[in-house]
């Protein structure tokens, strides 16, 4: 066991270029598998003592080749694959993909479907923000906040399960509509539970602002200037916390965001503490939007029947995912399968800013700062070499993933 491990470390040194001159300092490998990271990404932290001097990102560990695979699957079936790009912002991906395709079709999306898309998207934003606040408590060593926030997050997930049948992968959005309607009798229950969440969020806002041990870990950590964020094309709550009012829901309204009042939350400067305040306030805004949408839901159909062929053309569409602008580009040659689908996820846009925020801090801040941008690496890595498309093996299988993992780390080991 030991020799293969050393050999791999040796190989790793030769293959990733630019590492040799760093071996002198204390190089702490942060990842790829590390309890602080929910998904494998690998940052080589070059330390002097505890201070971080340089960070070299090396991602691609959950890279599944979705863009290549999308070119070999019909339009409708791609929805269920892109939905699984990320385990948190799954509905954002399916909505963005579906909107890009609808841009090429000449149909008019039913009104009610727009409102349902807004409601489910905002529910997903709440669960994603609450998840992040809890994780932030976990990184800062404040387990109690983590347990409480995730306890309340269960309420949102139960509402989503009541609407879509599954807590995360809603499988609700389809081309030109939504597959299921919101169960009318359950709406009063949803509204009442959502109001309870607002009271809890106000309480957490108080804890986040007053608990001094938490403030020491979050105030003044991970600072970055607004125009540096602008240069690095950052997106989402990170940018709004810096005072830049950039939000796809308000600038380029899709679904029903044009008909539902929304007040944009911005803060005046980025550090982990303001990021927490930013997300907590956004949850309150989302709750109000959902309640407004549920009360003003227009009647009518939720879905149109659409032929499985998309006319020739190109279209780009973006959506405000919980972490920021999620960009989809779709090109069709008029066939049953897309010619090209490009996905740019918010985490990839925010990664350069995160690396910038890391420099100068100590190792203890790494998980806190790294989570500052709420990285979802499942989102960002969506290309890998796992699918099989020869007719006989036209299946995804867990075995494949396991083989790739083993092979990746111990190339010599036979299967």
């Amino acid at each position: 066991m030991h020799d293969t491990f050393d050999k791999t470390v040796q190989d790793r040194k030769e293959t990733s270029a630019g590492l040799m001159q760093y071996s002198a300092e204390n190089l702490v490998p942060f990842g790829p598998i590390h309890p602080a990271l929910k998904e494998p990404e690998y940052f080589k932290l070059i330390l002097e003592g505890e201070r971080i001097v340089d960070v070299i990102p090396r991602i691609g560990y959950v890279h599944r080749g979705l863009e290549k695979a999308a070119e070999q699957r019909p339009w409708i079936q791609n929805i269920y694959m892109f939905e699984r790009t990320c385990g948190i912002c799954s509905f954002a991906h399916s909505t963005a993909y579906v909107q890009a395709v609808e841009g090429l079709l000449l149909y008019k999306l039913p009104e009610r479907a727009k409102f349902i898309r807004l409601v489910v998207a905002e529910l997903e934003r709440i669960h994603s923000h609450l998840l992040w606040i809890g994780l932030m408590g976990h990184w800062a060593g404040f387990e109690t906040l983590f347990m409480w926030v995730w306890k309340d997050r269960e309420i949102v997930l139960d509402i989503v399960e009541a609407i879509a049948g599954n807590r995360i992968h809603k499988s609700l959005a389809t081309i030109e509509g939504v597959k299921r309607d919101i169960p009318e009798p359950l709406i009063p229950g949803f509204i009442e539970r959502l109001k309870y969440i607002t009271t809890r969020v106000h309480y957490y806002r108080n804890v986040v602002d007053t608990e001094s041990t938490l403030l020491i870990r979050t105030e003044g950590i991970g600072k970055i200037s607004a125009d540096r964020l602008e240069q690095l094309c950052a997106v989402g709550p990170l940018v709004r916390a810096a005072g830049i009012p950039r939000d796809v829901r308000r600038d380029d309204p899709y679904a029903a965001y044009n008909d539902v009042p929304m007040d944009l939350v911005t803060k005046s400067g980025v550090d982990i503490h303001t990021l927490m305040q930013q997300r907590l306030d956004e949850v309150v805004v989302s709750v109000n939007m959902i309640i407004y949408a549920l009360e003003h839901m227009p009647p009518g159909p939720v879905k149109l029947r659409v032929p499985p062929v998309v006319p020739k053309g190109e279209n780009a569409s973006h959506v405000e995912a919980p972490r920021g602008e999620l960009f989809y580009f779709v090109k069709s040659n008029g066939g049953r399968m897309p010619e090209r689908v490009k996905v740019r996820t918010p985490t990839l846009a925010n990664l350069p800013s995160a690396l910038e925020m890391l420099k100068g801090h100590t190792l203890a801040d790494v998980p806190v700062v790294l989570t500052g941008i709420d990285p979802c690496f499942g989102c960002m890595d969506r290309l890998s070499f796992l699918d099989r498309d020869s007719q006989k093996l036209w299946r995804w299988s867990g075995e494949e993933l396991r083989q790739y993992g083993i092979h990746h780390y111990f190339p010599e080991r036979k299967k």
Partner: protein
Amino acid sequence: MARRMRHTVETSAVDLFTLIEKKLSPANAKRETGSDRLLVLRVPQDQLIASLKLLTEEMGLKHLSTITGLDIGDSIELNYQFWHSDRIVDIKTSVSKTDPRIETCTPIIPGAVLYEMEVHDMFGVTFQGHPWMDRKLLLPDNYPKDLPPPLLKGTSSEKIRKAVGIEK
């Protein structure tokens, strides 16, 4: 439907496009079919950096959403897609497959550093002047040098899997 509540764009939507088109005409940018929300301009390869500089400095298009690579047969098309208020501006240029090299735009748009690395990994386009061009972002370490980049139409998933050794 309530009027579109959006902060007033300095120039109304239509002439923003014509404004950009006029500004970029010296770089003989040709407008292609887009939609009322999507402006598509094709720019020759050598004029790209000049027009990007013009766009970001004078037109105030700061946010580059992404760089999309497209394999269109004999050449690789690069789309620099900007997001400006409720519009998407797509600057297209193409690079020949035989000699896929283009100048990096990171001095103008620092945020494009990872987008260029991704296009380099997936399409094999080298961006001259890019700080980490020798480093891989997404490809695994054992991706063979001789195998063409994965997202080109010629490389099938089958070949990639054999090369990376998942399947014998």
